[in-house]
């Protein structure tokens, strides 16, 4: 990547997971995840459905409480008792596979809801900032539309803008293109590339291997709740060490997805 992107890790560590475990009933979804993410780093999580990618992201945003282990965001342990959950969530934005826009609010209201009600920004400032973000992602003319009037790609871009409006330090993207028609995938991926170029620290769960190869500083292969292999994309994709990684990538290639 030859861009003015800030140097990875120049200003330290953004996120650290230590031996994170999570079960739903008897089903162990995360079985000891250790991972450190540097500032400005982009990590892509790959792996089959059910390997724990989504759960991992939801744990970092505290949408799911972890069973054991520690998660540290910007030096602060967010899994400690008595932390202000709402304050932490503002540091960590998440975008979902199904967009989850608020259908009863216009685009601009979707984007300004949190800044106004949570951060206490006044209406004029919040809207000005929202419009700036919408313009940056080519959505300025959609500001007064309701979500169901937008295409899937536009909705997902609005969802990204909505998460950015809270000014998070880390963005988590949970298979954000999986619900989109193929012709709409590129517009969303371009937005994410721009975010990466601007130095946003990101953890991205994705099935788009070509995209992961392009954008990631590091690829983590998850299998049955564990990170089996991690490394720079060039190595993971061309020379995977773990037999399960090889098997997974082979299936992806056979499916014509890479």
């Amino acid at each position, binding site marked *: 990547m030859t861009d003015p992107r800030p140097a990875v890790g120049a200003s330290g560590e953004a996120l650290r997971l230590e031996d994170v475990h999570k079960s739903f009933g008897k089903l162990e979804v995360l079985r000891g995840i250790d991972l450190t993410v540097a500032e400005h780093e982009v990590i892509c999580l790959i792996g089959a459905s059910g390997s724990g990618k989504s759960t991992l992201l939801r744990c970092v*945003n505290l949408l799911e409480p972890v069973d054991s282990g520690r998660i540290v965001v910007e030096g602060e342990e967010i899994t400690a008792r008595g932390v202000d959950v709402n304050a932490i969530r503002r540091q960590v934005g998440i975008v*979902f596979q199904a967009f*989850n*826009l608020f259908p009863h609010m216009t685009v601009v209201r979707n984007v300004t809801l949190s800044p106004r*009600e949570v951060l206490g920004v006044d209406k004029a400032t919040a809207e000005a900032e929202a419009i700036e973000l919408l313009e940056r992602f080519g959505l300025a003319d959609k500001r007064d539309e309701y979500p169901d009037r937008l295409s899937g790609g536009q909705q997902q871009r609005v969802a990204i803008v909505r998460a950015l409006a809270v000014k998070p330090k880390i963005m988590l993207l949970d298979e954000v293109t999986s619900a989109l028609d193929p012709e709409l995938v590129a517009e969303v991926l371009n937005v994410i590339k721009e975010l990466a170029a601007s130095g946003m620290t990101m953890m991205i769960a994705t099935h788009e291997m070509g995209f992961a190869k392009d954008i990631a500083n590091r690829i983590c292969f998850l299998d049955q709740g564990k990170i089996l292999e991690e490394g720079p994309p060039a190595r993971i994709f061309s020379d995977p060490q773990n037999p399960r990684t090889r098997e997974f990538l082979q299936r992806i290639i056979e499916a014509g997805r890479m």
Partner: protein
Amino acid sequence: MSGIGPPEAQLPPTGTGGNRASRILAWGRETEGARSVLVAMASTVVFVAVVLVVVLNSSGWPLVKQAFFNGKIFKESFAGIRTAFRVNVEMFLIAEVFILVFALFLAVLRSLTGPVFFPLRALAIVYTDLFRGVPTILVIFILGFGAPSLAIKGVPNSPFFWGIVSLVLVYSAYVAEVYRAGIESVHASQVAAARSLGLSRWQSLRFVVLPQAVRRVIPPLLNDFIGLQKDTALVASIGVVESFRQAQIDSAATFNFTPYLCTALLFIIITIPLARFTDWLIARDRRRRQAGAG
């Protein structure tokens, strides 16, 4: 309203423009629509005629006509009953405002998650069970005759007041369940999205869940509102002179039942528009959802 015919009959004509095939198709549909309207009208006329012939030729009809459809008595009692009907209108308008607020409060209590809120949840459940289980007229009797005896300072003693209180208590239990159904119909991912943006539990409920929930339950809410309008007549039992009580008085004075018909007519005049409005809202909702899915 079910006699109008198949839904195609209500479609707007689609014969403008388009190619020949679609024009023929549209023409076919139009004639079919017109035909089904004719069939519906004819069958209605036949049905009404048969009922009229049977009723008017029955041996008791002259007596029934005299006792229920007496034009003279209708004219004489109408003005008084109409004035008394204002009491019904006042009662349901006042009650409805309090019901909408109180029931929402109950529904929110009941949808609180977390073990800390168990007592509040339990309280809301006991409340709805209790007031949905007891017949409305019993609540009106118990409160209307019992509560004034307490002689609490600053609380009105009038049966009008306690009648409204009873209606609010009973109907809030029903409406709370309607609200709750709406709250539960909002997908959990909406809450996840709200919480992920840093909104607190309460803010998520207020800005994201409740607005969507309330919108979805407007038709069933209006349905309960129609029920409430009619049940204001029950308050007559504790001595409020509203339209039904007025009709009883007139009826007792004239030995004729026509005043009751008068009251029934007034109730119908206000409930039917609301019923049609509710139908219209439901139909519009369905159209929107179908348009959204397409």
